[in-house]
């Protein structure tokens, strides 16, 4: 660097390829006329073409959260365990003994629809880097996937591609995928959702932040070379797709140039190099994710309230004749930006050489508060003929204008009843059922309820040898060896992700609160205390008032549930404009949670363990048709699944239930515990019998269940298939039953004996007191077969 402090307010030099700034150019950069006026005001001059490109990515919805920021402020983000809340690369939560869980979930929806394998793979790669950039070794991943209708012509191809891509990256880099969710709904026909979560563990006193601190410190580039891939990926994330997915032979949106391509092998080298670098004098580090070099350097400068000067001539490249515009906006994967103290540069370069990574000193931290980029016009390190170096200013922008002063919109809200998911009618009666056994077998074999083994078997669930509970239960559980002072402390962490989007559509507040409650319930039934959540808020266009209302009310619902359950949101992201041909997705605020087990023996799983154990329902048995609105069973029966009111949730009752379960699992009272959710009580019972992951069927245990319900079709359907929240199916040794019932009674949690574990079938008797019993007999082998074939119509056998 020639000087640490550039002359202020340089006027950028023109570069080859610059376009005149016309209304068309502004439109293609998604800069509104009002925003352009604001840019000129910030600069006191007209921006250069490259500077306009920089504004377009930094002010994009993806980077600036301009439509959601005013609402996100209402989320509870603090708590006694929180070390770092939202705003960094990932959230950080204390797990005791000097260690911390570092985690985040992020969407990669738009890229995954265009190119499912690479879109999903780079989504996984991106979230992994967000976590290890903070000094944490990634120990577990989850993913939450949404696809269109099972019979939509693109669903099979998208599902195959996304699952292979998630596995392709995660398996290769060597982080186990321990859970997640998969849902099909026609609202995702033109917009799939791929939300990827990763958690890492770090020493609590060795967390690294994305801050460019220390005037005069060096900025280093490490990782893969820069190419032309992914240019404008961040602005593309705000594209609505035009009409694809509706016709019988839908056309692919053509935006291949905005696609990133992942290299998990390089990602693995980068991971190991970074973990080694963290024992040296690193001041700050950040992944070059969305908007690449631009957003990483701007955000690092912004968080430290400093300036940055970069020399693009030093950037390692893999494409010839790249322009500053392209270098700044490239989203080439597996790259990191790092700040090191002067004198430490060589150590960094040596470690990168050891791991066979490119690395270069590319700039310096300044006190100017400005983001200054220089480059030599026409210089190309890959050119045959070298030219004289003479770097001139390409961009000279106030850092604040790109970060804190980015636009914030409180967009108008509207009546949700006017939107695409307007409540159409009440559910007056349940569809008639003649053969209950057939109905149950069909439900547990339907694409949204049955076994996800076809998906999970494509993920390495056990790499690193710490997986205690594999995918298929309420939560994945991983044992993490934490090394400190020559001692190994074993931590046990639980992970789960959830969202029931139809319930959110019926009532955004209630549905989002239910998603929080369900994530936490999945953790506590596994024996883990929920210690932090992360969210991916996937919605349609915020420019439609009814969508903005969904966003706002969903955030309020999340906030209310988090507050009642005392669990903070520590990270997350927002994905808007999930629309095709003017039709938006179901509002899908996906939540993922991390739980900490007090000790390994608290670990509890969903499956029945021993013949003779007593099955107990904790929580309220629904009445009337409550819980049927939005349910999987109604949807499967072809009924309008968006009719009626969302099931109500009593957050105080939920809290009482979860407190009871935490105590019961901690004291090893329960043989099994399983959340009642999609598919209702009978589905939970079936899963407790046959959903043990990776069993060859030999471990399956049946049960004899009696449910007190009137003979009315509505009552029976609601009891078996209703999806009212705050319920858990547990089993206990007979000797422990009295203790469980007495604790439940003291906690004010309804508890009802349902039956006894044993046999090779699940038999369910429906009766009121004194009336004849209607018996339903289900062979476990049939249930297992039905569940395991649930995706066959989509993926083949």
């Amino acid at each position, binding site marked *: 660097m020639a000087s640490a402090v550039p002359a202020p307010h340089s006027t950028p030099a023109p570069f080859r390829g610059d376009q005149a700034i016309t209304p068309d150019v502004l439109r293609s950069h998604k800069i509104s006329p009002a925003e352009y006026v604001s840019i000129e005001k910030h600069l006191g001059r007209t921006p250069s073409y490259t500077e306009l490109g920089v504004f377009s990515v930094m002010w994009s919805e993806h980077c600036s959260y301009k439509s959601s920021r005013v609402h996100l402020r209402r989320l509870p983000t603090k708590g006694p365990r929180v070390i770092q809340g939202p705003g960094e690369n990932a959230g950080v939560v204390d797990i005791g003994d000097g260690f911390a869980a570092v985690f985040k979930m992020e969407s990669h929806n738009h890229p995954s629809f265009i190119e499912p394998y690479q879109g999903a793979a780079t989504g996984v790669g991106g979230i992994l880097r967000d976590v290890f950039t903070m000094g944490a070794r990634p120990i577990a991943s989850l993913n939450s996937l949404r696809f269109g209708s099972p019979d939509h012509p693109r669903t099979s191809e998208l599902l195959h591609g996304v699952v292979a891509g998630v596995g392709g990256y995660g398996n290769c880099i060597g982080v186990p995928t321990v859970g997640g969710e998969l849902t099909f709904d026609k609202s995702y026909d033109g917009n799939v959702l791929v939300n990827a979560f990763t958690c890492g563990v770090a020493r609590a006193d060795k967390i690294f932040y994305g801050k460019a601190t220390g005037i005069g410190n060096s900025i280093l580039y490490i990782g893969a070379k820069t190419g032309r891939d992914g240019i404008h990926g961040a602005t593309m994330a705000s594209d609505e797709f035009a009409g694809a997915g509706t016709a019988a032979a839908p056309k692919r949106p053509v935006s291949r140039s905005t696609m990133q391509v992942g*290299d*998990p*092998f390089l990602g693995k080298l980068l991971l190991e190099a970074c973990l080694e670098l963290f024992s040296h004098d690193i001041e700050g580090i950040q992944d070059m994710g969305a908007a690449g070099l631009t957003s990483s350097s701007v955000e690092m400068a912004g968080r430290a309230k400093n300036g940055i000067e970069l020399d693009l001539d030093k950037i390692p490249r893999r494409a010839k004749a790249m322009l500053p515009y392209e270098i700044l906006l490239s989203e080439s994967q597996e790259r990191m930006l790092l700040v090191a103290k002067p004198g430490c540069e060589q150590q960094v370069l040596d470690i990168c050489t050891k*791991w066979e990574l490119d690395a270069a000193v590319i700039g310096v931290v300044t006190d100017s508060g400005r983001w200054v980029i220089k480059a030599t016009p026409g210089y190309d390190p890959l050119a045959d003929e070298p030219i004289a170096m003479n770097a001139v200013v390409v961009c000279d922008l106030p850092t604040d204008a790109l970060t804190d002063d980015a636009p914030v919109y409180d967009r108008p809200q509207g009546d949700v009843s006017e939107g695409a998911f307007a409540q159409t009618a009440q559910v007056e009666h349940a569809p008639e059922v003649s053969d209950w056994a057939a109905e149950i077998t069909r439900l547990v074999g339907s694409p949204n309820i049955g076994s996800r083994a076809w998906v999970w078997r*494509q993920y390495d*669930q*056990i*790499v690193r040898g*710490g997986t205690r509970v594999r995918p298929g239960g309420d939560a994945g559980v991983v044992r993490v060896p934490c090394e400190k002072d020559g001692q190994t402390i074993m931590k046990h962490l639980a992970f789960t992700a959830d969202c029931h989007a139809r319930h959110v559509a019926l009532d955004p507040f209630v549905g989002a609160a239910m998603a929080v409650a369900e994530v936490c319930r999945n953790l506590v039934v596994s024996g883990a205390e929920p210690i932090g959540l992360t969210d991916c808020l996937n919605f349609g266009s915020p420019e439609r008032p009814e969508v903005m209302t969904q966003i706002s009310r969903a955030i309020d619902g999340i906030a209310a549930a988090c507050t009642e359950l005392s669990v903070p949101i520590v990270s997350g992201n927002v994905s808007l404009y999930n629309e095709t041909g003017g039709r938006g997705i179901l509002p899908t605020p996906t939540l993922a949670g991390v739980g900490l087990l007090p000790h390994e023996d608290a670990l509890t799983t969903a499956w029945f363990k021993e013949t003779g154990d007593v099955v107990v329902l904790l929580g309220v048995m629904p009445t009337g048709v409550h819980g049927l609105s939005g349910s999987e069973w109604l949807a499967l029966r072809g009924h309008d699944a968006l009719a009626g009111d969302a099931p109500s949730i009593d957050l105080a009752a939920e809290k009482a239930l979860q407190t009871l379960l935490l105590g019961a699992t901690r004291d090893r009272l329960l043989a099994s515990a399983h959340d009642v959710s999609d598919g209702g009580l009978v589905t939970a019972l079936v899963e407790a019998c046959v959903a043990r992951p*990776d069993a060859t069927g030999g471990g399956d245990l049946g049960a004899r269940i009696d449910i007190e319900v009137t003979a009315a079709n509505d009552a029976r359907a609601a009891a078996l298939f209703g999806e009212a929240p705050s319920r858990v199916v547990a089993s206990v040794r007979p000797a422990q039953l009295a203790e469980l019932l007495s604790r439940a009674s003291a906690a004010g949690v309804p508890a009802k004996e349902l039956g006894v574990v044993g046999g090779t079938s699940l038999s369910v008797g429906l009766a009121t007191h004194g009336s004849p019993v209607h018996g339903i007999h289900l062979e476990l082998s049939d249930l297992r077969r039905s569940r395991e074939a649930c995706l066959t119509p989509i993926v083949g056998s």
Partner: protein
Amino acid sequence: MRAAVVLFPGLNADAEMVRTLGHVCGADVSIVRHTDTALPAGVDLVTIPGGFSYGDYLRCGALAKVSPIVPALRAHAERGGHLLGVCNGFQILTEMGLLPGALTRNLHRRFECGDVFVRVEADGPFTPKSSARWRLPIAHAEGRYQTTPETLRQLEGEGRIALRYCDAAGEVTDAANPNGSVGNVAGVYGGPRKNVFGLMPHPERCSEETIGGVDGRVLFDLVLAAA
């Protein structure tokens, strides 16, 4: 007992191998990097863990076999030293020519992770004399063992087919074959004294009661006792 874990760039199943050898089985474990040219003095058991060496680019194990450490591995095997390759390690050993055959794309063309059963078909330093049935996890996309019918017959005759995929009852069936391997082969012996062993399942992920069971530990206990 001294054990070494060889790390090629991109291998990722080292944590469980180190823990199983060291913490679980009590060996003294050292890490050898691909750029090293010698093994630690007096090492009894050398292991190559699973993962994706060089991203499995070109062909699984094809790039690892030209690493600086490879001559030392070859010399160790030829001396009769114990050499174990798991998953990608197995693929590297076949690429090096220390084990016969090749591992190709699974017949169903997907990555496959889950528990399988294998039947012990031959005894040796890594397998017991009595026939045993182990439940072990697999996690691979390229585990389909292939060789010519003549080589397969020869291997069978020499007692070098060590493990075959089987069902819960121990029957070797097509349905129990997770990847289309010829003859359901899951593990193969090589070397002058059956001292080289490669298998696709992961015994190091199955050596503790709370982590999927202890069937895998038998293999490590046997070879470390033999060392």
